[in-house]
């Protein structure tokens, strides 16, 4: 032990928590202030799900048979979850950019909470996803989507979508801190998230898939979340599904958020 370095009283937990939240808000605000400068990103983030809705509604939809609901009613839950999952990784791409550009160095020389640096963009992305969900919903209604959800079920469905966005964003942070390169994060997002989003119940009923694939698809998180959202929007009696979906989100955050903070702290060990 070094005896000359000064010692200080530890900061109480509630004060740390207060400042972690306050810092996270300042960083969230930074990302919200970016919005006017990022119209391309916003346009592409909105146009992609719109194209998906129209493609699946009018091009593929005719070939897909859904026993319990019209295809557009079946489809919307899948489109919501798929776009939230793919969009969730953009935060990771942004973080990788920040790591390269050095603004993270500025944060790391300030006495702020590491969790705030990571949570700020995630909260901002979650808010952006809320906007995109609204746009898609309006479009869905225009092309024949007829949900039968109660107000409570609506809140549940949107809450679940935002929880999914939040959870996927933490995966994006872990990936960004591991590879620290925006292009590499983009590739990872495509290679991992794309199959997860499509090999699910998002666009086609699981029963139409080969029997060996069905058990995998049925239990992977995207299917669980899609089924839960669909159940809520179409007033199915889905039992525990929303809780299972929420448990997946909570589990992902419980693993990825602390892992991101550990990786962030390890940036000093090059």
């Amino acid at each position, binding site marked *: 032990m070094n005896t000359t*370095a000064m010692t200080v009283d530890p900061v109480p937990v509630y004060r740390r928590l207060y400042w972690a939240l306050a810092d996270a808000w300042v*960083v969230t605000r930074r990302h919200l*202030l970016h919005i006017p400068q990022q119209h391309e990103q916003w346009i592409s983030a909105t146009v992609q799900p719109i194209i998906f809705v129209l493609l699946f509604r009018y091009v593929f939809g005719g070939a897909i048979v859904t026993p319990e609901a019209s295809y557009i009613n079946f489809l919307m839950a899948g489109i919501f979850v798929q776009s939230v999952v793919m969009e969730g990784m953009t935060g990771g791409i942004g973080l990788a950019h920040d790591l*390269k550009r*050095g603004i993270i*160095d*500025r944060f790391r*020389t300030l006495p702020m909470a590491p969790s705030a640096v990571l949570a700020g963009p995630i909260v901002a992305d979650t808010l952006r996803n809320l906007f995109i969900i609204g746009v898609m919903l309006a479009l869905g209604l225009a092309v024949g989507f007829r949900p039968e959800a109660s107000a409570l079920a609506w809140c549940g469905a949107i809450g679940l979508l935002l929880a999914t966005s939040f959870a996927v964003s933490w995966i994006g942070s872990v990936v960004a801190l591991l590879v620290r390169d925006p292009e590499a994060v983009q590739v990872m997002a495509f290679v991992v998230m794309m199959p997860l989003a499509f090999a699910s119940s998002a666009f086609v009923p699981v029963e139409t898939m080969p029997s060996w694939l069905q058990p995998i698809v049925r239990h992977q998180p995207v299917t669980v979340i899609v089924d839960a959202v669909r159940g809520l929007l179409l007033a199915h009696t889905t039992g525990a599904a929303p809780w299972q979906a929420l448990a997946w989100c909570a589990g992902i955050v419980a693993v990825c958020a602390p892992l991101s903070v550990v990786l962030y702290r390890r940036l*000093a060990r090059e």
Partner: protein
Amino acid sequence: MGAHSPAILARGVVKRFGTTQALAGLDLTAEPGTILGVLGPNGAGKTTAVRILTTLLRPDAGRVEVAGFDVVRQPDQVRTRIGLAGQYATVDELLSGRENLVMVGRLFHLPRAEARRRADALLERFGLTDVAHRPVKTYSGGMRRRLDLAASLVTEPQVLFLDEPTTGLDPRSRLTLWEIIREQAARGATVLLTTQYLDEADQLADTIVVIDHGRVIASGTADELKDQVGGDRLDVTVAAESDLEDAVRALERHATGPAHVDVAQRQVSVPIRNVPGLLAAVVRDLDARNVRPLDFRLRRPTLDDVFLALTSAPAGPAGDECEEAA
């Protein structure tokens, strides 16, 4: 706090990147309220040292304390007391200059009004008031640099680290920054400044440390370092590049050390001991070789001479060799 310990203390600091030994037992000390100038050629380890002192990088070995706190074990204590303007600007391109500074203040946990007050004062001080509300991506290189320097001062740090702060600044901005650095020291802050401009170290630094290959090779005040080189310098500028070789031969006969040739300026510079009759002899020798000097100048050594004498690599105005921003 920290009145009895140095503001900056590094002992035997080692840092390796793969097979590159960036720091090989670096020692630094700066007393509170002083300006420490760190000189060294490209790749000497200046940026690595600054990154370790500012908690961005962990040393592999050695002891490092800033403002009396251990950078590895008490990083948050260090972070509340330091400011850093790194070699590459660390500002948000999409925010305006003012938004950047206010954000730094808020993350330092200043009340909103105080963060704004300091931001506006610094924008004014650094001549950025006119562009305060424009996104940083529309700034020129020098404006961005000044904003980054302003960001390092928002927290009114006790110890300030500036890694090549005047690189890319125009002469007026450079003088303003010199003034600001002196003000910081006058209010009691300790400043560590790396630079490639040796006159800058000469003008500002109380103590100068020259590092090369990750280790201190000389230290002292500017005058002490100049005395180490000893004697006087003779600079001769010739009319044509083809005359350089003859000029070197003529001058080396009278020099006390090797000649430095600046081809672009067509100038030869040698250390000499100015004994009576020496200058006349030099002129005769140049004449004998048919070399016509355009300029013939005797002077005291500068820090540039110290630098060239001590380090193997030449000192360039900017680091363009090792641009690994990590």
